[in-house]
């Protein structure tokens, strides 16, 4: 690991300001992904700004009837929060499907959104990777791609975003609140937060340099039956091959977001409109334009079948 200086931030705005002024500075919260990548020389920050003591670990009700989740709320605490379990079960279920108990105790809400891909070519510093080393090429294309993306990918990168939590946040129309180095604040819709790779796969989010996530806000509960189904190679502690998050209303309408297939949580509102027609119609529209490889084209079928299973389960429990 490269040497770095370490400091504790006094406030979100000060953290943002500090990060913007030192090139190569990074925030550290749970550290579960960042330290892993630092040990591998994939991340090489010269300064770590510890943001664990800023009091951003509360979940508060909003005047609009939703919840404001502090950026530093641990995954365990978010999944276990009584309001989340009752009104945003999809979020609890997605969180509990991710990582291990130890990691969920450390990992934070904002950190979860900012985690990097687990593409094996991104992790292997001997391989070409446009995300890790812009312009170096993509060794994943033509390589072992079973776990990798089928839609939203580009000729420069076919990595997926690995988060389960983000799938639920996307389906729930979460907003990401930030503060910039100049002290100004803004709110970014989940739909606009993660960026597709295009020719710049190293740019993963719409955050500007130093911009600091303070909270993730959920709108008022939408009701319905919430199901998160993750298909993976072992039954626990593994990344998704495919995951489906579903909110189904009694009238047959609902929302669907899919994980394990794209560089961001994959949700297409026009596909959701087809929910009353069944899984095949929805998944065809959802995955329209997909460019799978020979190794991962099974994901097209897997999305449809997982959605069919989840829809059947939702209708039983509704």
């Amino acid at each position: 690991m490269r040497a770095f200086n370490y400091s504790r931030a006094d406030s979100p705005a000060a953290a943002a300001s500090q990060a913007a002024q030192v090139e190569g500075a990074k925030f550290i919260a749970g550290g579960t992904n960042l330290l892993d990548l630092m040990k591998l020389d994939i991340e090489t920050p010269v300064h770590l700004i510890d943001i664990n003591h800023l009091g951003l670990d509360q979940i508060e009700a909003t005047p609009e009837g939703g919840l404001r989740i502090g950026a530093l709320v641990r995954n365990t605490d978010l999944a276990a929060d009584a309001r989340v379990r009752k009104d945003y079960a999809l979020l609890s279920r997605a969180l509990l499907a991710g990582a291990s108990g130890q990691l969920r105790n450390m990992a934070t809400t904002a950190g979860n959104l900012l985690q990097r891909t687990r593409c094996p070519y991104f992790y292997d510093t001997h391989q070409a990777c446009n995300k890790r080393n812009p312009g170096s090429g993509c060794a994943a294309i033509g390589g072992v791609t079973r776990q990798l993306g089928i839609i939203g990918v580009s000729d420069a990168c076919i990595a997926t975003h690995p988060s389960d939590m983000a799938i639920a946040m996307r389906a729930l129309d979460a907003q990401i609140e930030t503060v910039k180095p100049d002290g100004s604040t803004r709110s970014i819709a989940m739909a606009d937060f993660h960026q597709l790779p295009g020719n710049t796969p190293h740019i993963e989010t719409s955050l500007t340099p130093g911009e600091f996530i303070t909270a993730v806000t959920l709108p008022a509960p939408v009701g319905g039956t919430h199901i998160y189904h993750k298909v993976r190679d072992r039954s626990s502690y593994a990344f998704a091959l495919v995951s489906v998050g579903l909110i189904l209303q009694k009238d047959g309408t609902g929302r669907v977001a899919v994980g394990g297939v794209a560089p961001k949580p994959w949700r297409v509102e026009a596909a959701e409109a087809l929910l009353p027609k069944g899984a095949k119609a929805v998944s065809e529209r959802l995955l329209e334009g997909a460019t799978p490889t020979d190794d991962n084209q099974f994901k097209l079928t897997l999305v449809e079948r997982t959605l069919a299973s989840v829809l059947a389960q939702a209708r039983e429990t509704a």
Partner: protein
Amino acid sequence: MPISRRNFMILGAVTATAFAMPPFISLKAYAASLEQPAMSKVTLQVNGKPQTLEVDTRTTLLDALREHLHLTGTKKGCDHGQCGACTVIADGRRINSCLTLAVMHDGSDVTTIEGLGMPDKLHPMQAAFIKHDGYQCGYCTPGQICSAVAVLKEIRDGIPSHVSPSLTEPPKLIAAELQERMSGNICRCGAYSNIIEAITEVAEVPA
């Protein structure tokens, strides 16, 4: 956290210029200040005893425990958060000590396997692992035991898991729950069924 003088001077320069966008400290200029590793002081409570260490900022909590405090019961397996051998309990919660920095734990209260119990006074979970043969080589065992002690608390605290049938009812102390919650602790020898028996025995004795 007390910081070294050099570290302080750099931070001072940064703080003083806050909100004035230039000057910007370039990567090259900043990296030059790091030719010598940055050192930092950290004070934490380990197994009930206050400890003050002067560590390279890169030191993980795991390395601080093993190399600085010589508490070698906590094991380094993968060093990437995948195996769970390094599991300790920090401020009441189990964590992978390999994926957190010692300097992030200033003021923390850390319990390692040595703090749970020693051969002359075993923790009930340690005794149960021995009774049920919950290991072969024993390398993952300290992490398994720290994790298991924390798992029972998580269930008692009503924290749901992936396999909990309901999010609104308290989780049950059943094998499926224990298996799911222990999935972050890998046992290369495959002692899993005996580990679950050991945890089940402790779980059945009211805390």
